[in-house]
Structure formats: structure tokens, C-alpha cells
């Protein structure tokens, strides 16, 4: 059904041509489709952009409309997301215009995946998604929550959905941060069917919130006949959340990590956030402890000064020493600093090699007691050192067959 005079809009495009594209659609009673395209790449892609838009309009049975597009070189999935979002403001439809999945995007994640770094990308800023994967973060978070203006949240859902299908993130774990409450539950329909690996649940304060998200995910999975796991990462951002940390961390087998969000947490406490982090030490330790108790990864907050790599490195070292196993980042430059400083250092690797070697030697002699020099080593210590070596091997710092030329 079409109604005359209604206008739907979506997209980002300023007077300097910055952004992706801005689409407006005005339904008409007659005259067919009037298509007006202003594009930086019109000479090369004008025809294909028009063909794409006409196919989308036809898909939603729009027969009479004025469609105006200002484009600064947006990729097809972005133009399609913008147009679909605009159309759905003026046309009621339950249909989704979906591109085929990029074959590169069908990879899986796993529970123990490294999560040293996870790069936040605003869900309504597709140009930032374009090269995010080449910086090799462990995870990429398409954010539907705080990084998106309230007025843009709805259109961001279409961008995020299409990005999950069409944007290559080069092997990074594919994460989405949904909104709080009911709006967040509605976000799930835009992401669950599209190979999202992990969903971040913001400002989580209770097990009930996890349960609600899980129920909704289960419903959608059933509807689209999806059987694979979707992991969860609650974010603790309030004093109440901190107090309920273990309850939340252990609420579901799908929870693989839990993060603390310090901007909101310190705001909740009414204190200033500092580089030393003394004001949030209790909260961070409680979250770390809850995570380790629940056998999931403990993930620290983002470090907000993107210009100070030295301070970031110190922050990562501090974070690691407290028991965190990863942190968020808001700029690609932070990724390598985070990786380098979460990775085991030479001393840690040497110590681990010594203990693990002693463990294997003891095992080969049928002994159950491990000794290094004159000291006895407990099984939990061995286990921890095995983890260090596994990490070093997976990061390429240590060869897999390190024992072949190991001289203790």
C-alpha cells in the first residue's frame, strides 16, 4: 500500500560530501519512479546504483515515488541499507532485502577465541567498517548502542545487518552490541540470522536480562532454523552490575566473556575516571574474579585517549596483571599495543617453558610430582603455564615444537 506525500530518509551526507550516502523517498500517487542521483562516482556506478535501487523499490512494491540519493561512493550494501530503511518509514513491510552472504563471511568463532582486542565501530558509520578488518583486531563490534545517536538507531540496524552479510572483516570475531531493554531485544532480529558470533549486552545488572536475551535469540533461531551457538558478552557498567557479577557471568553457557565498562561505572559511582584506575579497582577485581569463577574471559574497558600509546601500554600491563584477558579499543592504532602487551613476554614464556618441560619429563618417568630445581610445582601452576605457552604458540611467538630444541 502506498500513500502520497510521506517522506522517509536515511543516511549520512554533509555539505562537504562526507559520509556515505543520504537517501530520501517520497511516495507519490502516480508518475512511476522518479530517480535522482548525485554521486561522486556517478560516471562509473550511476547505472548500477539506479538498477540496485529500482530492484529494491520493486521488491517492496513501491511503484510511484521520488527517490533522491546523494552518494559519496558508498558500497552497494550501504546504499541498499539506506534505501530499505527509508522505505520502511513510509511502507509497512515484513520483508527484508538481503544480499547473498559474502562467502568470506561464513566463518565460525569458538568459545576460547582470543579476545585481547575488540574494536568498536559505530553501527551507523559504514565507512569506518570498510578497512577495520585489515588492522586485525580479534573482534569487531558493530555498535548499535552508545555510538549511535538516538535518531539514527533504527537505520543503523539495516547497516549492521547488511555489513554482517557483505562487509569482509578478515577473520575478526563478528560482534554486535545491542541496545538496552526492549529496543535491544528488537535489535536481535537484525543480527541473529546473519552469522553474528557474539552479542554484547550493555549495562547488564541481573541474570534476568541475560535470560530475556537468550529467549529472544532462541525464538529467532527457531524461526530461521539456525542451530549454531551465539556467544554472549555482558558488559557490567553499574554498581549493581558489579555486585551481581558472578550471577551474570554464570547465567548461560553461551556467555564466553564479560566486560566492564568504566565510563558508565565511574559515572554511576559519581567519581572521575583516572589513568591509574584506583577508583574502579573494586569493580574491576570483582568482575575479574566473577569471570574466572565462571570460567569465562575477563575483558577490561576501553582506554579513551587514542593519542597516548604509552599510557595505553601501561594500562594494558596493569589490566593483564589484574587478571583481565582483553580490552576494548576505539581506534585501530590501539590494536597492536593491546596485542603486544597482553601477549606473554619473554620472561613469562621462559618460566612457562621451564615448568612445563619439567612437567612432561616427570610425566614420562611416571612421576606425578613436578619439581623445578629444588621447588615442587603444584598442578594448577602447571596448568597456568600450559595456558601461557598455548597462548604464545597461537600468537606465533613460540614454535609449536618448542621442546624439540629446548635445553632446560
Amino acid at each position, binding site marked *: 500500500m502506498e500513500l502520497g506525500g510521506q517522506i522517509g530518509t536515511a543516511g549520512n551526507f554533509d555539505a562537504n560530501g562526507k559520509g556515505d550516502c543520504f537517501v530520501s523517498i517520497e511516495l507519490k500517487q502516480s508518475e512511476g519512479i522518479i530517480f535522482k542521483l548525485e554521486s*561522486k*562516482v556517478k*560516471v*562509473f*556506478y*550511476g*547505472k*548500477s546504483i539506479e538498477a540496485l535501487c529500482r530492484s529494491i523499490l520493486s521488491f517492496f512494491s513501491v511503484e510511484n515515488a521520488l527517490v533522491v540519493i546523494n552518494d*559519496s*561512493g*558508498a*558500497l*552497494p550494501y550501504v546504499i541498499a541499507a539506506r534505501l530499505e530503511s527509508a522505505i520502511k518509514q513510509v511502507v509497512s513491510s515484513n520483508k527484508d532485502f538481503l544480499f547473498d552472504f559474502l562467502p568470506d563471511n561464513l566463518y565460525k568463532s569458538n568459545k576460547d577465541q582470543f579476545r585481547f582486542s575488540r574494536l568498536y565501530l559505530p553501527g551507523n558509520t559504514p565507512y569506518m567498517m*570498510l*578497512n577495520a578488518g*585489515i*588492522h586485525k583486531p580479534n573482534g569487531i563490534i558493530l555498535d548499535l548502542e552508545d555510538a549511535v545517536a538516538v535518531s539514527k538507531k533504527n537505520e543503523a540496524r539495516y547497516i549492521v545487518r547488511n555489513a554482517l552479510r557483505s562487509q*569482509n572483516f578478515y577473520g575478526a570475531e563478528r560482534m554486535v552490541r545491542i541496545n538496552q531493554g526492549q529496543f535491544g531485544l528488537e535489535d536481535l532480529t537484525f543480527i541473529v540470522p546473519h552469522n553474528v558470533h557474539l552479542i554484547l549486552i550493555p549495562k547488564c545488572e541481573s541474570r534476568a536480562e541475560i535470560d530475556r536475551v537468550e529467549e529472544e535469540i532462541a525464538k529467532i533461531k527457531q524461526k530461521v532454523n539456525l542451530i549454531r551457538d551465539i556467544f554472549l558478552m555482558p558488559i557490567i557498567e553499574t554498581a549493581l552490575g558489579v555486585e551481581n557479577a558472578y550471577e551474570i557471568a554464570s547465567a548461560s553457557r553461551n556467555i564466553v566473556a564479560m566486560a566492564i565498562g568504566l565510563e558508565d561505572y565511574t559515572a554511576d559511582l559519581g567519581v572521575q575516571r583516572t589513568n591509574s584506575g584506583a577508583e574502579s579497582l573494586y569493580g574491576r577485581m570483582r568482575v575479574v574474579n566473577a569471570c574466572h569463577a565462571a570460567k569465562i574471559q575477563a575483558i577490561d574497558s576501553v582506554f579513551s585517549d587514542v593519542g597516548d600509546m604509552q599510557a595505553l601500554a601501561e594500562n594494558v600491563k596493569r589490566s593483564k596483571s589484574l587478571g583481565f584477558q582483553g580490552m576494548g579499543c576505539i*581506534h*585501530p*592504532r590501539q590494536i597492536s599495543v593491546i596485542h603486544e602487551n597482553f601477549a606473554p613476554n619473554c620472561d613469562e614464556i621462559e618460566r612457562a617453558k621451564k615448568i612445563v618441560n619439567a612437567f612432561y619429563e616427570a610425566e614420562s618417568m611416571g612421576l606425578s610430582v613436578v619439581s623445578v630445581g629444588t621447588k615442587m610445582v603444584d598442578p594448577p601452576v602447571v596448568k597456568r603455564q600450559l595456558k601461557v605457552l598455548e597462548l604464545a604458540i597461537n600468537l606465533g611467538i613460540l614454535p609449536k615444537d618448542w621442546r624439540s630444541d629446548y635445553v632446560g
Partner: protein
Amino acid sequence: MEYYLKIGGVIMSVKLIKNAVGRMVPTQINGEEAIPFMGIGMFVPKNRKYNSKIPTNANYPADGNKKGKDLKDALVKAGLANGMRISTHHHFRNGDLLANKIFDIAHELGVKDLIWFPSASFPCHEHLIPYLEDGTISRIEGSMNGPLGKFCSEGKMKGIAILRSHGGRYQAIQDGEVHIDIAVIGAACADSFGNANGLAGNSASGLLGFALADSQFADKVIVATDNMIAFPCVPWQIQGNFVDFTVEMDQIGIPEEIVSGTTQITKSPDRLFIAELTAKFCEEAGIIKDGFSFQAGAGGTSLAISEFFGKIMKEKGIKARFARGGSNKYLVQMLEEGLVEYILDGQTFDLEGVRSMRENANHVWTSPFTSYNYHSKGNFAGMVDVAILGATEVDVNFNANVVTHSDGYLLHGIGGWQNCLFSKTVILPIPLFRNRIPVVRDEVTTICGPGELIDVIVTERGIAINPLRKDLLEKLKGSCLPIKSIEELKKEAEAICGVMDELVLSDEIVAAIKWVDGTIIDVVRKVL
């Protein structure tokens, strides 16, 4: 092939010939003979060098004071007349007030059909478009940036533009291919005799090397300054013995625009990523070694590459023998930290560069003659171990474009780009696509540099080595760096951006691109 060329509304018959890089180019441009590009090193000139008329002291003031009333007076005395070729230089970059003033005066005097012969133009010269429209200026022979390039691309200029490299411009003047009637040289510091430099004063630009040929070969030379000092003005980058008139003006340049521009290290994570990959490539290829030399431009990515170079050099305890400038604060810092022994400077991009040039004997000023001229007895370009350059497009044969965008618009100058291609290794760090337009193409829109001189393309998604560089391919075998073929890069770009529709341009030629030896490597056609 006979071709009908439209110049200034007049249709002329011109022969087109396929040149050595497969482009159809005219044998005549603006009524003068044009030689098609024959291949690198294939064109050998037989003539003698051009020289200007012999002057006599009898015609100049015995006290050496050549100071005139004002610029208009000097231009009139220099014989400004219809059809003359007026040269300027671009050391003031986007802060140039002088070139605009010259043509304001010409317009006021009712002079027509002038040929402007700048060493480069900038967006500030948009001021001249009305003079191109009203016939004061008939054409521009020089690199054009932004608005003037757009004007030319749309076929609005009366004559055909000719773009030359910095070295090519020197060659053209020296060979007599270009005759300059009046050269106007803006200098931050000068004496009334005409000795001049760019080192001190409000309009300090560092070097005046691009004006050297103009001073040596023009019929009449005017030095204009806003900082006239008592004789002698030393060091004399421009020698007063070449100068006919001197003029003192209130202001010849806008200081913040002279030193502004691309003089900050990029903050873009993607460009930093490309810069880091480039530096890693040079390290693994063994280019960064004790006593090596390099040239990096002043763009944000180039500056980042220099910084990554510095980091590697510090870690390894090695230093470079020399770096070719464009100097800027980052290169000066490397000089002062001892990472680089000499800066051989072609142009100075910021005040730190100016200061260093003034104070440091190892910061040496060079000219397009010493560093780039192809019709000379050798030059510096071939001695540089690695040159890091930009490009708007590269094709699968490694041919590269620096002047036009993929839509055919002529928006950038050549600078010293073509000359730097003679460095031992030429690397183009470029994004794989810009605004959905793949940078790696089947064929570039305009060939400015032949593929055999371009060795490596570094993009954010992979590094392509020219198959001609078997040594580099061998060295990088087994590297962790993402080495790919250029065809793979092109395919990757197209997979992301889509395949572009073919660009359709008019047959009308609006500009010609000269190779360093003065032959025509390609032409630019009118955008429809």
C-alpha cells in the same frame, strides 16, 4: 592517423601517432612540433642548448640599483605585450599573491593571449579563471591543481595545457623548447641588484630552486620582494646578474599558506597501516642499510613512512647518507639527530625546513638542474636508493597516473614525480580504492610514468612487486608481508567496489603530458 583537433573553437587537422606506451598522441601541439614518447632513454637530442641574448652593463644602472617603481612599471619596462610567455614559480604554494597580481596588471593594461608558465599552480590561482575566460591568458603551460585543472578538463581553455615535471621544465627551458619572455621571481629576501633568497622575511619559502632556469634563460627577469635589504643579499639563490628589474611590494605571499599543506603525519589508521607496511617492506628488502638514501614526499603518508624509517634506523643503529627533500620538520629532526647526514633539498615545506636550511650546512639547496634535469650530464635522481611517491591510479602493467582522476579530471600536478622514477627502487604506497574507485586498474586514465620504472605498489590489502624486479621478488620470498600480484590486488578492489563502467571522454585534447625528455607520453581529453 589524421585527427581533427579543436583549439579555441578552431578545428585543426593534426596527425596522431601511437607512442611507445601505446597512447595516441599528436605530433603538433599549440602549433609547435611535438615528439611522441619513444621509450625510456630512446630520445637523444641533437641540438645545442638554447641561450638568451647577451646583455650589456651599459644598459643597467652602474650603481647596481635596479629597483623600479612597482610591479606594473617593471612589467611595462620589460615589454609586456600580447602573446608573451610569463613565468612564475610555486615556492609560495597556496599563499602566492604574485602570479595573481601579474595578471591583474596585464588585464588592466589590456594585454591579451599571454601564456602562463608556472612551475606549478595552486587553488589560490582560481583568481585567474576570469582572465582565461576573457582572453588575457590563452593557456597554462604547467602543472595545475584543483580549479584550474577542472577548468582545463572541461575544455574551457583556449590552448592546450602542457604539463612537465620539475626536471622536464628545466629541460624545456634549457633546450629552447620553451621561450620565456618575462620571468617574475618572488623572493622573501632580495637586494636592489636582484640577488635573492627565500630564507628570511614574512614570505620565507626556503628555496627558490624552481626559479633558477627562469632567471638564467628568460629574456627579462623581475625579482619582486616584500623584504628588500641592503646589498648584498646572501646567500644568493638567485643571482642579481641574471636580473633586469627589482620591485618592492607590500606583500608577495601569505605566510600561513606558504608553509601549510600536507606537512603533518597522517592520523588515518589506514594510511598509517600502509606507511608501516612500506617501511617493513624496505627493511625486509634490505633497502634500509647504512649509508642508504631516500626520498619521501611531504604528504601525510610519506611523512609517516619517514618516521617509521627513523624508528628502524634507530633500532639498527644505522644512518642514511642523504635524504632528498621536500624538507619539513620531521626530516630536519632526522638530520639533527644524526640519522641522516645530508638533506639535498628541492623545496622547503615548513618553517623548520627554512630554519634548518639557513643554519645547517648539511641542509643543501638543490635545483631541478642538479637533481632532475634529464638533458644534463647525469643527475641525483638515479642515485637515490628508494623513492616513495604517490599516484592517483596504477594499472596492471605498473603504469601510473598522478595528474588525472579516474573520471578524467585533471586535478593534480606532476611535480618531481617523473624525475624520481629514476631512483633505484620506486614504491607507490596507495590505498586500494578511494571513494569506491579502485586505484589499481586495467589501464590508467593518463600515463605519467611507464610501468618499467615503478617497482612496488603498497596497499592496505597487499604489496605487489613489479615482475621485472626479480631481485625484490627473490628477497621477499617467504616473507610474512602480504605479497600479492597486481592482478590479485585489482581483483580484490573490484570485489569490494564493483566493476566500473568504462569512462567515455571527448576526442578533444585539452592537455599534454610530457615525459622528462620533452616527448609526449600521453594526453588529457575533455571531460564530457
